[in-house]
C-alpha cells in the first residue's frame, strides 16, 4: 500500500475531491497546512505597513491505496489541481506497512 500526500491550493480541494470520487476513490483525509515552495508568499498590510506572509494556506490530502493505483491517482490529482501558475503544489508518495479498519479490525487491502 502507498500513502499519496498531495499539497494543493485550498481552492482546488473541491475539484480534486470530485475527480477522485468519480474515479472511485472516495476515502481520503484532508488537513489545513501552510507552506512555501517556489511560490514566495504574498504581501499583506497592517496599519499602513506592508509585510510578507511567506507561508501560504494550502490543503493537504492524504489517500492510502494499493500500490497499483498510485499512478492513476497522481494523474487524477495533477489534472484536477493544476492551474499552471506557481503554487500548484506537490505530491509525495510513501510506503504504508499496515492498514487497519478500527471498526472491524480488517487489515491492509480490506481496510482501505
Amino acid at each position: 500500500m502507498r500513502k499519496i500526500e498531495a499539497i494543493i491550493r485550498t481552492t482546488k480541494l473541491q475539484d480534486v475531491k470530485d475527480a477522485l470520487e468519480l474515479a472511485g476513490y472516495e476515502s481520503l483525509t484532508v488537513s489545513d497546512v501552510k507552506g512555501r515552495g517556489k511560490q514566495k508568499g504574498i504581501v499583506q498590510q497592517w496599519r499602513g505597513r506592508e509585510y510578507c506572509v511567506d507561508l501560504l494556506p494550502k490543503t493537504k490530502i492524504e489517500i492510502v491505496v494499493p500500490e497499483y493505483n498510485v499512478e492513476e491517482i497522481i494523474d487524477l490529482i495533477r489534472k484536477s489541481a493544476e492551474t499552471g501558475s506557481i503554487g500548484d503544489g506537490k505530491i509525495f508518495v510513501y510506503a504504508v506497512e499496515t492498514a487497519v479498519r478500527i471498526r472491524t479490525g480488517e487489515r491492509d487491502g480490506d481496510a482501505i
Partner: protein
Amino acid sequence: MIKKHTRSTVLFVLMLSIVFMAFSVPASAETVEENTEAIINLQAALTYVWLLLAGALVFLMHAGFSLVEVGLTRSKNTANILMKNFMTICLGVVVYWVVGWGIMYGTDAAGLIGIDQFFLIGADNAVWNNWFFQMVFAATGATIVSGAMAERTNFKAYLVYCIMMVALIYPVYGHWVWSGADLALLSGADSPLVKIMGAGFHDFAGSGVVHSIGGYSALAGVLILGSRIGKFKNGKAVAIPGHNLTFAFLGTLLLAFGWIGFNGGSTLDGSDPYMNLVIVNTFLAAASGAIAIMIATWIKTGKPDPSLTANGLLGGLVAITASCGSVENWAAIVIGIIAGIVVYAGVMFNENVLKVDDPVGAIAVHGYSGSWGLLSVGVFSVGIGNGILADAAYTAEAPGLIYGGINQFLIQTVGVIASILWAFVISFIIFKIIDVTIGLRVSEEEEIQGLDLAEHGIRAYPEFSMSK
C-alpha cells in the same frame, strides 16, 4: 456682557434648583407668560433629547447591519464588509449634510425634489436636531444594498453608489413622502395623485422610504452584478454558509434595539404619547415575524433555522415600520406573521425563481417585506381620530380595508409601485454606469481569494486556522 458658564457653573445651578425644590420655594415669582415660555422650551428640549437618543440608537443599527452581514458571509470577505458598512455611515454623514438633506427637505420644486438648504446653510438647533435624526436613516438604504451585493462587489464602485444613494435615490423618494410640501408627489395635500386616490400616502418610519428603496435598489444591483462564484450549480442554488452565527444574532438584536429609536423617534415629538403604541406594535410584529418563520422552517425542513429566524424578526420590524402608529396590537401581530412568511417565501423565490444571489436576504427582508408593510397600512389602519387613535396627530389618514376604507389602500399601492419603480430604475442606471466606468465586480481571482486580501491586503482573523 455675556457670562460664560463653565462645566461646573451649570452643575452648580442645577444643585441650587434642587435645593429650592427641597424648600418648595420657587426660584422667583414668575408670570404666567414666563411659565408658558418655559414650558414650550421644555417641550422642545424633551424633543431634542428624545431625537438625539433615538438617533443614537438608529446609528447603532449600522453596527447591527455590519454584524449581520459579516456573520452571514464568509470570513475571507469580512474586512471588506466591515469597511463598506463603516464608510457607508461616514460618507452618509458628509453627503447628507452637503446635499441629501437639501433634496429631501429643501424648498419643494414641483413636488419632486428639494432645492435648497444644501450644506445645512442657515441651520439652527432645531434643524440640527432633525438633521441628525434624518441623517442616521439616510445611510441605511445604502447599507441594505451592500448586504445583498456582498462578497463580490468592487469597493470603489460601492463607495460611488453609496454616495448616489444618500445624495439622490433616498432623498428624492423621501421628499415625495416626508417633505410635507403641499405638492409632494405621494403625500402632499395638493398633489394630483393624492387628490385622485383620496388619501395621502402614509409611511410612518420608512418601510418604503428606507427599506423598500434599499431592497429594490439591491435587486437592481444584484441583477447586474450576478451571483457569487459557486452559488448556483446546474441552475440550482447551493448553500454557502456564513462564518459566524454569533455575530449574525448579535447584529440582529442590535438592529431591534436600534428600531426603538427608528420607529419611536419617528414621532418627531418628545411629547407625543403615541410613541408608546408605536413601540408596542413594533415589538409585537417583530416577535411574530421571527416565530412565524421559525415554525415555517421547522415544518419544511424538520429543523428550526437560526439565520432565517433572525431574518424573520427583521422582516417583522421592516413591515411594521410603516404601520406601527396606525394599527391595533392584534393587527401588528398579523402583520408580523405575514412579514415572516413574506421573508421566507421571498428568500426562496429569489434563489429558486429569480436565481439571484443575496447572501443576507436583504431583498426579501427590506424590499418585499417593506412593500408588505406599506400595503398593511392600507389594510389595517384604524384611521386618524378613531378608536385607539382618537387623539393621534400623526398616523395614516383613512381607515384600511378591514374597516371598510379603500382610499388608503389605493394610495399605499401607488406608493409601493412608485418605490419599486424609482429605486429599481434609478439604481439600475447608476449601477450600469458604474459597471461600465469603474467596473462593478471584482475579478474572478480576487473573488476566490477573498475581497479582504484583494481589496485591503488584510485578513480579518489572521491567527485562526480556517478550513475553508
